């Protein structure tokens, strides 16, 4: 350590401080929607529940693939488990339907841990298709359980004990809460020791391992966490539409949507999926009358993004204008801020010119988030 060179590590920037307050405001608005005139309609809340479900699922997939390097094309396995858990617990065992939503997450997490014994034997590309096979196995298995309606599925008739508007408001608030918890949780997670390991894993698996990150256990944790989130999404979504069938619950479209949202928005960033979800739903609205064209255009957009902007739209914007919205990136800030910002590296304290250059190098090279 050279004399006179003291620094602190800062995560906050002016943009990130603003973004946090913007996030708080958005959360307040989101939670008060049911009581707002015009927007608090049944149609809007239904749509909003769907948007929030997709966004949470995309964040989960991003956490798993973008950070953990686990490319799964079978996360619908856990959405489906979540949906069926609501049927089992609320419909058959008489648990409060709303309480059965977190239970759905727990069931999905348990299923993830148990099946990880098999799918974690595969790496890289094999893992991707292996998780898909797993989702197919679940789909076929649930199609053959006649108590749960077999291939045609089952309706969540217990929900009729709530009147329509109570049901809609409750589901909406649960979905909003899930989104807020997921957003805040991912931020806190990535700021923690766990998140530092995960970010290291994202950047280089070998380097992370050499620095003492327990890669295997970290991957299992992030896989379980993402599956828990997917289970909650399944629980919320199917409580909202009131019917679960194996074909819909284990539909590959779940993961297709999550992947496109993440890839187009920006893989391995927390802001990316939000941008991606906005594009995904805007295009869906714009192309509502064109059927298969919608998926075709989303697919083309994703492929073009991977080819020309591999970090997605958000990654492109961030690199171009150096914006960091969430307080996740760690920057070295020298004591007496002037030093880091001084263009020629001159500082008030008696450090050599060379030292300051090095310090600036540390600030500018490889951002940690």
């Amino acid at each position: 350590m050279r004399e006179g060179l003291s620094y602190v590590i800062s995560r906050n920037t002016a943009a990130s401080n603003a973004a946090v307050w913007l996030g708080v405001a958005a959360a307040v608005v989101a939670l008060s929607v049911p009581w707002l005139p015009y927007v608090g309609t049944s149609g809007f809340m239904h749509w909003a529940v769907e948007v929030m479900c997709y966004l949470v699922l995309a964040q989960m997939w991003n956490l798993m693939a973008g950070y953990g390097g686990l490319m799964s094309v079978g996360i619908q396995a856990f959405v489906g488990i979540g949906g069926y858990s609501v049927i089992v617990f609320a419909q058959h065992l008489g648990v409060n339907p709303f309480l059965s939503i977190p239970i759905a997450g727990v069931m999905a997490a348990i299923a993830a841990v148990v099946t990880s014994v098999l799918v974690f034997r595969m790496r890289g590309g094999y893992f991707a298709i292996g998780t898909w096979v797993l989702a197919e196995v679940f789909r076929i298995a649930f199609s053959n359980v006649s108590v749960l309606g077999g291939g045609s599925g089952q309706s969540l008739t217990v929900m009729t004990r709530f009147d329509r508007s109570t049901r809609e408001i409750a589901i909406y608030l649960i979905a909003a809460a899930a989104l807020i918890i997921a957003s805040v949780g991912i931020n806190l997670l990535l700021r923690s020791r766990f998140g530092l390991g995960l970010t290291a894993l994202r950047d280089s698996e070998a380097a992370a391992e050499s620095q003492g990150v327990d890669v295997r256990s970290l991957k299992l944790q992030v896989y379980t966490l993402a599956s828990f989130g997917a289970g909650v999404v399944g629980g919320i979504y199917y409580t909202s539409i009131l019917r679960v069938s194996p074909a819909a619950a284990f539909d590959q479209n779940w993961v297709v949507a999550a992947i496109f949202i993440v890839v187009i928005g920006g893989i391995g960033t927390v802001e990316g999926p939000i941008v991606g979800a906005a594009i995904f739903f805007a295009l869906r609205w714009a192309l509502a009358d064109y059927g298969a064209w919608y998926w075709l255009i989303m697919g083309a957009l994703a492929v073009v993004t991977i080819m020309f902007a591999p970090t997605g739209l958000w990654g492109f914007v961030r690199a171009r204008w150096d914006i960091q919205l969430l307080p996740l990136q760690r920057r070295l800030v020298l004591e007496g801020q002037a030093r880091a910002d001084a263009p020629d590296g001159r500082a008030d304290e008696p450090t050599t010119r060379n030292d300051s250059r090095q310090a600036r190098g540390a600030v500018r090279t490889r951002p940690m988030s």
Partner: protein
Amino acid sequence: MIEIVDTIIQGVLLGGLYALFAIGLSITYGVMRVVNIAHGDFMVLAAYLALWPVTHLNMHPFVAIVPTAVLMFCLGYTVQRVVLNRTMGPNFLAPMLATFGMSIILRNGLQQVYHADSRSFQIGGLGTDSIHLGESLAVGKFPLIVFVVSVILVFLTSQLFTSTRIGVALRATSDDAETAGLMGIRASRTYAIALAISFALLAVGGVFAGIRTTFTPESGPATLLYAFEAVVIGGMGSLWGTFAGAIILGVAQGMGAQFGAGFGVLAGHLVFLAVLAFKPTGLFERTV
């Protein structure tokens, strides 16, 4: 007893068809370490491409395989050069996501052009004729042809890998793309050849699958999963291993189907998971 023998024979013959799906996937994974998620959807595309000369020029489906294979070869080369090579790097995520995007494009594009109706190829009596082996055993002539063609193609592709210059280049790139590059083997070109060969083989698989059963724009994912399972059961690095994996998968599906519709596919998946549990490197892994 005779039923079991019959089931096994039918399963082995079905496995011959699955081997045709799987060889291409085995080659591309072996060379690039990337699983082509659009593999099955490209096979469906090949089947639709072959449908054109068959319906409009009255070409025999077997003959239509030839121009389709040539077209698919060129398509594979182009897709790798134009799209996938841009995404290749130390991280497998980007190329796989690109193939994932392509699979969704193909599935929905075919849906848009050909709608959801199922299609098939007709080859007259040959499609239904069978050879009787004893009183209650019969082997269909067409499945037998598929099996023989499959054996021949596996043999030819292994020969290609072991005794041609292209094969040496493919294996060298597979082992260490960077060092191969120093020896004058450009990875971008070798990758393109690998995908081109894989796509040409898909033309054979696509037409044969279309004769045996039917196909729709949605047939791709199942094809990919069967091909993938055959490759994993067989183990890395051996085309004959992949062939054996396909046979095992075919027999498992045949046995499972005895328990009812839908159980055939499930039995295949379960055998795949069992192999993962007990011998995750595959049954016939070969380390070169």
